[in-house]
């Protein structure tokens, strides 16, 4: 079987949807965070696939992925710090308990 662009994209979409679902339905902040990473990586996969299958052999997509990975790493460090701080303060990392935005 010849693996083409479509297959990569289907996997990427599946990953993205899994991630989105995780963000929406899971209650634990850490798991939501992991799901978010999953969505980012789904995007990465799609970008790499586009780069690999482009006619011009352009490396733009792959370079873009490195950027995303870097930014994601930075984001994770900030996000995890926030979660830890939140947990210390509230003794919980469940989103149902974090509804102070509501009046």
């Amino acid at each position, binding site marked *: 079987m010849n693996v083409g662009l479509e297959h990569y994209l289907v996997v990427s979409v599946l990953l993205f949807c899994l991630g*989105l679902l995780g*963000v*929406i*339905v899971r*209650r634990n902040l850490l798991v*939501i965070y992991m799901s978010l990473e999953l969505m980012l990586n789904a995007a990465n996969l799609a970008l790499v696939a586009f780069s690999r299958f482009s006619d011009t052999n352009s490396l733009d997509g792959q370079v873009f992925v490195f950027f995303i990975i870097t930014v994601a790493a930075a984001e994770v460090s900030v996000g995890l710090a926030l979660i830890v701080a939140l947990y210390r303060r509230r003794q919980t990392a469940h*989103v*149902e308990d*974090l*509804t*102070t*935005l*509501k*009046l």
Partner: protein
Amino acid sequence: MNLDLLPWAVLFLPLLAAAFITLFTQHNRKLSAGLSIGAVVMSFVLSLIFVSVNGWGPARDVFVSWLTIGDPQAASGLYLQVDFGLRLDPLSLLMMLLVTGVASAIHIYSWGYMSEDRGFPRYFACLSLFTFSMLGIVLANNFLELFIFWELVGVSSYLLIGFWFERPAAADAGKKAFITTRLGDFGFLLGILTVWATFGSLKFELIEKALTANPQALGALATTAGLLIFCGAMGKSAQFPLHVWLPDAMEGPTPVSALIHAATMVAAGVYMLCRVFFLLDIPGSHALEVVAWIGGFTALLSAVIAIQQNDIKRILAYSTLSQLGYMVMAVGLHGPAPAMFHLTTHAFFKALLFLGAGSVIVALHHEQDIWKMGGLRRKMPVTFWTFMAGTLALAGLWPFSGFYSKDGILAQAAEHSLPLYLLGTAVAALTTFYMFRLIFVAFLGAQRSDAAGHAHESPPVMAWPLRLLAVFSVIGGLIGVEQLYGKQFPAEHIEQGASFIRELVAPFIHAPGVATFGLLMVFLGFAAAWALYRNATSDPLPEKLGALSRAMRNRFYFDELYEATVIRLHDFLAAVADWFDRWIIAGFAVRGTHGTTELAGRALRLLQTGNLQTYAFLFALGVALVLYLVLK
């Protein structure tokens, strides 16, 4: 020095005094009173100087431009130019002298009369404001200015009638005076608007010129405009059916009553009618006929009521009403000159009578019922004799001032309308009757109460204004007042007496029948009073007249009638308005808007769960929707 500055000073000095007292010297009784008296006396002196230097004529305006609206060349014709100016002609100059003169006497008298009162400085501030407002009416050179001062007089009368505001009766009387006159002023304002719409100007001089050039300028509106303007006079000069406020105005301090009844307020209506006489006296206008009959009816009605009043001030109040009726009637009979003449003499003797009454009231510790007086002649000689002079002048005995002015009016009536002439003479008899009833009961006979026994003469500060006014009440008819008004109004008959003696008997030469008959009526009234009240210990009339007397004592139930009709209707309308405001405006409109907004807010708040994942879900849904729309 510029001579024209003097009238401005005359006008504004009392205002300055009022403002200064209110702002700075509220707590200094003597200084406040001194300022106020000083300002008014100064005004009087300046008026005298101005008149003696300037002379009485010719008529002219001194003014500054106040506001201009629109463009005289505009096609729309909307153009209004208002001056703030002074009209200087014999009419206004004489009134200026009269107002400042009488007001000076009353100010000085008040020093004695009000000396015990707590609100002494406030009283003088209001009194000065009153004088200022009246001077403004007198000197105004256009309708708008006149109207502004007209309302100022209303305000000051409200302040002064309700001076003892802690007494409910006084507070009510103040309100009544203000509201009743405001009713008339509404018509007056409409009249002014009519005049402006027709002539495009509010200046008396220009309107008069336009009317002289084209007497039909007002067209079919002539009668309406005249009557609307008369409405104003009807309120201020207390003519039937707006006469009800004047007797109640007796709740104010007595010098205020004197001021209201003599030189200011009620005089304003008659003065205004004379000032705009050119607007009333138009061929084809029936306004003057109505004016004459309303005046005549008021004169008769109030004279009849006066007969059965027992409060000394109320008798005088109804007498004022009656005399005002005379003046208005004279204006209505094409005689502004006799009307103003009577206004002038009346100002002297009515101020005198009121101040005399005030003197009696103070001596008796605020007793006003004439049946509790009696025998005051010996206790209070100055008051008695000056009061007597005022009474004789009011009754119209030759050669007192009232005789000449009343004769002028009666002669005018005899010439134009027989029924009104007969009515006028009847009122003359009634006037003499009720005034001598007052004299016999209050001053002669035996004392009827302890207070009357302990009465004593008033202090000089009160007695001297009485003496001064008494002199003018006696000679007021002979000092050339009538001739002066003759200069203003080319009247039909002004006795141009060559010598003093000739002037003294002029009425008998010009219209001997009228003069003699008038005097006869005076004697008739006197005889009736003599017969009934010479030694009376109680009023014999209620028994003889029965229900009629009761009706007179209750002022023909006008207050009750208004209570049942006008006030009831007003209360009903007020209740409707209250309901409308409570339920429609506040309930439906205001609270409805507020309720709808709040409800919408509450509904929208449900969307905000505060749950992170709801937002994430909605966000994803939104993105999906956008994607679907973009990629479709």
